[in-house]
C-alpha cells in the first residue's frame, strides 16, 4: 500500500491526496494506470536522465604481446554522460549494478578472447570458440561501489594486434539499478 497523490480532471479537485501508514508514496494519473511508486527505503531514485552511461573504443590498431591478456586501450569516447571513463577505465561514482558490454576484433581469423575485468581481475570472460573467428564479445551485470571499483577491458590473441575498429573493439555500460 502507499499514500497517493492522484491527478484529476475536475477544476478545484484536480489533485487528490490519500494517506495510509505504509510510508510508501505513489503518484497516480487520472486513470490510475500510470503510477510512480517511491518506496519507503533509503536510497537515490534514478530516472533515465541521470543514470550514467558510457561507450569507448579502440580507434587505431594496438600492438600487443601474443598469448597474453593485454589491457585494451580504449582511447576514444563515444559518450560518457557522467565523466566516469578515463585512461581506458570506467570508475563509476554512483553505486549500483551496471550492464557492461564489450567486443574485441583481431585482424586475422583466430581465437581471440575479450575479458571484462573488475578491479584488476578477470570478471567475465567473453566468447571463445574452437573455430577461428575475428571477434569475441562479452556481457555482464556487475556491481560497482561508486568509489573504488573500476572496470577495464582486456583481450587475448595469439597474434600481436588488436584491431582499432569502433564497432568491434569497444566497451560500453550503463547503470541499470542503483544500490
Amino acid at each position, binding site marked *: 500500500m502507499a499514500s497517493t497523490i492522484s491527478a484529476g480532471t475536475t477544476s478545484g479537485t484536480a489533485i487528490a491526496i490519500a494517506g495510509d501508514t505504509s510510508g510508501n508514496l505513489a503518484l497516480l494519473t487520472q486513470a490510475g494506470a500510470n503510477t510512480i511508486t517511491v518506496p519507503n527505503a533509503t536510497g537515490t531514485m534514478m530516472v533515465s536522465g541521470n543514470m550514467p552511461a558510457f561507450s569507448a573504443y579502440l580507434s587505431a590498431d594496438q600492438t600487443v*604481446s601474443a598469448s*597474453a*591478456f593485454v*589491457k*585494451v586501450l580504449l582511447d576514444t569516447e563515444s559518450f560518457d554522460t557522467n565523466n566516469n571513463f578515463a585512461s581506458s577505465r570506467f570508475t563509476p561514482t554512483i553505486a549500483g549494478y551496471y550492464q557492461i558490454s564489450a567486443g574485441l576484433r583481431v585482424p586475422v581469423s583466430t581465437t581471440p578472447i575479450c575479458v571484462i575485468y573488475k578491479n584488476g581481475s578477470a570478471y567475465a570472460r567473453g566468447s571463445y570458440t574452437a573455430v577461428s573467428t575475428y571477434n569475441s564479445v562479452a556481457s555482464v551485470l556487475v556491481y560497482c561501489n561508486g568509489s573504488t571499483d573500476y572496470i577495464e577491458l582486456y583481450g587475448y590473441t595469439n597474434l600481436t594486434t588488436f584491431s582499432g575498429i569502433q564497432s568491434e573493439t569497444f566497451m560500453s555500460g550503463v547503470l541499470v539499478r542503483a544500490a
Partner: protein
Amino acid sequence: MLEKLLKIYPELANFDFASGVITIQNDSDNKGDYIAKWEHPTLARPTDEELA
C-alpha cells in the same frame, strides 16, 4: 614473456595460454608482460632470475 617461458620450458610450445592455467598479463602501462597466474600441475613457476 612468452619467448622467455618457451626458452625455460620448451614443452610449453603447444600450451594453450588462453586456458587460464598460466596467465601472462600486460596492463598496457609500459611495465611489460608478467605472470599473473601460474597453476601448471607439473612445471614450477619460473623465478624472477630465470625470467630476467
